[in-house]
């Protein structure tokens, strides 16, 4: 991700000094993004959670702490757990279907999307 200055110090004409916290805009964006991605993933989209986890992993764990990082970390971890649960479900269904496809009779055939030709 691009680097940007964390703080910009300015000196105004009247001698006042102030720091423009411009980076908080990006971190706010990241925080909202992880949160929104987390909610979007509930529409049976585990890949969104996976992307959430991978993309924002660095921001959540590898960069020095900043105020919004706790929020980001929370959602990144939740996405990781969600992806893991989905993996279990998908692998389990895969194994069950492969074992039971022929034994279920008609149900197995109607669940099969591409019916095999020439083999049971």
């Amino acid at each position, binding site marked *: 991700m691009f680097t940007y200055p964390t703080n910009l110090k300015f000196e105004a004409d009247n001698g006042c000094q102030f720091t423009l916290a411009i980076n908080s805009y990006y971190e706010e964006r990241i925080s909202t993004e992880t949160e929104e991605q987390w909610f979007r993933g509930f529409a049976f989209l585990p890949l969104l959670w996976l992307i959430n986890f991978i993309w924002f992993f660095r921001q959540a764990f590898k960069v020095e702490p900043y105020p919004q990082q706790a929020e980001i970390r929370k959602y990144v971890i939740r996405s990781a757990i969600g992806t893991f649960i989905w993996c279990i479900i998908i692998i389990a269904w895969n194994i069950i279907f492969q074992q039971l496809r022929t034994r279920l009779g*008609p149900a197995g*055939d109607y669940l099969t*999307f591409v*019916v095999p*030709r*020439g*083999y*049971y």
Partner: protein
Amino acid sequence: MSVSCVQPKRIADQMYVSFDRARSCVRRLNGTHEIGCQSSTSGNSGRMYMIDNDQEFNSFITDTKLIDSYRSFIIALNVNLFTTSYVDKLMTSLGSKLNGLLLYLKSSSSRPDYFSQDDQSPNHRYSYYLNQTQVVNWNPQGNGLFFRSFPFPMMFIDEQEDYERLVKFYRQFNISQSTPTCGLELSTFQNAAHTSKTCIRRNGISHSLLDSSETMCDPVGGLNVYSKLPQSLTIAPKIRQPKSVILILAATDSFQMFLKEKGPTGGAQQPATALIIFLSLAHLIGQEQNEFNQQDKEIIFVTLDGDALDYSASFKFLFDMKNGDFPTGNRNEDPIRSEHIHSIIEFQSLSLTDKLSLYAYPSALANQTFIDTLKQNNPMIVSAMPDSPLPPASSQIFLRETSSSSFPVYILTSNHENELSNHYYHSFFDDPSTLAINISSLEYNSTTEFSQWVKLIVEPFAQTLIEYFVGSTKNVTIKQEIINNLVYCVLKNINCPLIHNVTNQTTGNAFDSFNETSLPFSINTYPTSPAVTSRFVQSILSYLLRDRMLDTMNLTEKACEQLSKNDSFRSYTYVGGYTPSIMSDAFFSGYCVRSYSRSVSSMSPAFTIDNYDLSQTTYPVWTESRWSTISLRLFIIPTRKHEIVTLVIGILLLSTSFVVCLILRYYTKISLLQPSSS
């Protein structure tokens, strides 16, 4: 300057030698099993090894070094070694390395004496056989291989030129283990699997909105045809009398383990002989129709298509009869039920023998007078012991479904001491040579020993029918020419003058595509298979049983159409006329033919009954798989050294090309090879 059109030759085509006229074994399914052979989608290939006799077979089985050195084998086996013991031994010793079996016939004179893959007791696998305690092996040389399921493809080379080509390549390349060897690829991928129930269910599955479902198998069935003299119709309010219908049965189908697209299907002894006798008898009944029309009994000629596999056609016929659908068509015609049937006569498994066996069952209902008259008129007929077990015949189902209590059946067959005389029962070797016919020299009007034999059977039989039903003794004769023509059309060329004389222009033209083809007798699937056999039989049968009064009238085609408008029970066609069967003195350019014939689907009732569970055994449920390509190709497997050298050269070339490209890129100024600037 001339530009010649050059046919581009792909290297892939030059690598293979194809054998296009090979027969193959296909997959069929029934309610509980699958039978036949299956290959992988892209074909099964392996090293070819030819086994010609027993010694070579034993030396191959024990040569473990050779078997271990290759991953898969395709065994080319002499057809004389195609027995259960050899095939089983081969399968056990090679295991999964046996990737295919190619049978070959060296020459037409070296065919085995017996070749039948049907069971020893045909059509006896399920309880369809009439419940008789004694199991008789009618086909003792049958090895039952047709009904087994093989995980590899099996093909058969029956043409002598193909065999010689195969042997030439084999001898050229199979000198020792180090030279390149021949490999074969058999591709016979079948779409169907498991059982008929699974396959029919899968036929209708389609999840996508764009693609429609793919059909993987078709139910076995064709057309049952029946025909009778058109003058005797029982139309309301007339009621049909009990015991007033006689059915005469013949089969129009057979099966063979190895079949090919365009080639003889066999079936000369069964069912062609019975069919020729059946049609000749129909001609005689038609010829003597004035006699038969004086009495009140109807003789209906019925052909059944699909009885070779568990009697599907007979079950359908009886199912229709129970539901009042026999005869189909106009509802005003009183349906025929089992109480209306007087008796059934069947011609089954006949061969050119000097003695014929007559089975009558049950003995309590069989009419001894009829049997005695038959034997008296034709001394060739020998009657079997009363209540002896019946040979495989459609009548068994007629008896079974009516508890053998309604009517007797009479079966005429050629057997000797409970063994059918047919050595090639249900195989494609059952060809006209088994009937002492030289098919290559057979002409449209050749009189052969066989056609004379048919005349000797048909005339006394018709005479007996007249004596028994009409009551008068009359000498009936059939012109030898008619039988000769029938023999030619059925056994050599269905596109013969006879079929064109008895059909109108459009129907006759449909047979032109079958020029020089004999009448095919194989498993038909409905409605995909063209079932030309049933159409052929129906056209000839309805013509032979026509109303001969119209032969004396010179009608135009328009007048014929006018007649058909007022008659919804009989059919009218305008044909050229088959001269040998016309008795009147005047000959016209065209004749109006008034006939009564119907054809109905002969698919097992299992496929038409709603909510019928296809795994039940009430009715047979045979289906045949669909397939797309069947091919047999030969190629050369190079030696190990050759393969390694090819690989090494390939890798060297690859790395050299990388190096050259690198050099050109960095040390020259060719702009095409420089990295792009953006």
